[in-house]
């Protein structure tokens, strides 16, 4: 059996006395789309940041394509990061740059591509997410939330990465725009043949874009399986989350009057 393309084993990360990841283990095969579901503060974003090296795990192993991903520096780190694209929850577009400069940023600064060529590529990627070339000259502040997400998606796929992370891709969007984004994600991922990890609360989004689903709870993966099996997971935690029930094994810290 082939080794997983992305593999996390026993990853732990704490901030002071707060233990966010408690020995998290996860694997994603090449070309698969994994969606990680879980409540707020369960460690989803920290997990992605550990894989990217933005945060250093306290313990554990992270491997991408068989390569150790922890503690990389200099050229090795740059080379490692070139495999990735990421769509951030709030899009994280650079305010001071125009839309096309945002999309082309990784090509110009990260890969040293000439501006004119990078601009053409940026306009092409904007076209893939349904935005016209005119939008390229606007500033991010002139765009709606949905358009910003699409620009963020164009930026994430601009360099045709092998791995793409989607952090809450549909949060804050109306249901129609959320579905548009989901379709674009599926379309772009299929086109690139990329391996993806998405984190979301939105089950409609998860069902649409996932090949596999994993549930994170208290910093650990408590269930992972094919997306079509999520309704028959046999886990009361997964059932409570996907059906949005207040009662169940997951207790929310809500003070009652």
């Amino acid at each position: 059996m082939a080794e997983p393309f992305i593999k996390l084993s026993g990853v732990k990360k704490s901030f002071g006395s707060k233990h966010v990841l408690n020995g998290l283990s996860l694997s994603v095969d090449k070309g698969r789309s994994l969606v990680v579901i879980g409540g707020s503060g369960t460690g989803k974003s920290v997990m992605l940041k550990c894989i990217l090296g933005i945060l250093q795990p306290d313990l554990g192993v992270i491997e991408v394509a068989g390569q150790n991903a922890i503690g990389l520096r200099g050229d090795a780190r740059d080379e490692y990061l070139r495999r990735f694209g990421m769509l951030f929850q709030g899009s994280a577009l650079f305010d001071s740059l125009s839309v096309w400069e945002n999309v082309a940023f990784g090509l110009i600064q990260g890969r040293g591509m000439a501006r004119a060529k990078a601009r053409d590529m940026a306009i092409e990627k904007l076209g893939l997410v349904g935005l016209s070339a005119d939008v390229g000259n606007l500033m991010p502040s002139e765009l709606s939330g949905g358009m910003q997400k699409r620009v963020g998606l164009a930026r994430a796929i601009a360099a045709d990465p092998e791995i793409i992370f989607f952090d809450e891709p549909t949060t804050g969007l109306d249901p129609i725009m959320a579905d548009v984004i989901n379709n674009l994600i599926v379309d772009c991922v299929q086109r690139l043949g990329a391996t993806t990890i998405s984190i979301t609360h939105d089950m409609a989004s998860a069902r649409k874009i996932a090949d596999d689903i994993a549930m994170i709870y208290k910093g650990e993966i408590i269930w992972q399986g094919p997306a079509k099996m999520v309704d028959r997971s046999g886990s009361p935690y997964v059932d409570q989350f996907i059906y949005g029930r207040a009662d169940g094994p997951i207790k929310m810290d809500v003070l009652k009057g």
Partner: protein
Amino acid sequence: MRIEDINFFAPVGRLVLTLLAEIGRVALFTKDALLVGLSPRYFWGQIGAQLFRVGYTSLPVVAMTAFFTGGALALQIYTGSSPTTAGTLVPSIVALGITRELGPVLAGLMVSARVGAAMAAELGTMKVTEQTDALVTLSTNPIKYLVGPRLVAAVVSLPLLVAIGDAIGIMGGYFVGTRNLGLNWASYLKVTAEQHIFEDVRSGLIKALAFGFIIALMGCYHGFNSKGGAQGVGRATTNAVVSAAILILAANFVLTSILFGAH
């Protein structure tokens, strides 16, 4: 009440530990800023943009501060001198005071309020909106892309601003001395020229170099370490200005001791 609750040493110890931890974080950030931020490759576009923002756009503020300070200094020196000595004391002390102390210190404080605060606010907003994380995913080191150019711009701009501020400050003293106080203009210029002013200007420029570094370092450090949304960014901005101002005044004392202490 337990004895631990009134233990005087506990809060003092906490304060000392917090202070030491902060000094350690600043030292590590300084190391990264110097080793990573100032090593090749250089983002020339960013350096140019920051030179414009730190240097060119600060010029009016520094010029006005210097002009009025030179004028006020002339008035105070005139008040403290006799009519026979005023003609010598006013131009010489204005030149000395502006070039050695007031020019670099006031320019440093004004630029820290203007530019240091803007750096902290901009980088703090980038931090809390994950733009700095986005840089990492785009294979761009945030320290190299954001901190390096700001350090270079501040270290280059401050001496230039102080040199211009020195000239305008002396002009302010000249303007008030000759127009308001009735001093002879030719004698004023002659006394100013005899002050071996270039030695004093050189010391001021050395100070400006250090102040530029402090302003950019504090602006970037507090911006990069801001957390918790708008309130966190506001706190970072305040901390950047306050810490830069204190460090500028402390560095000024140390540099004055080194440059003039033996005389």
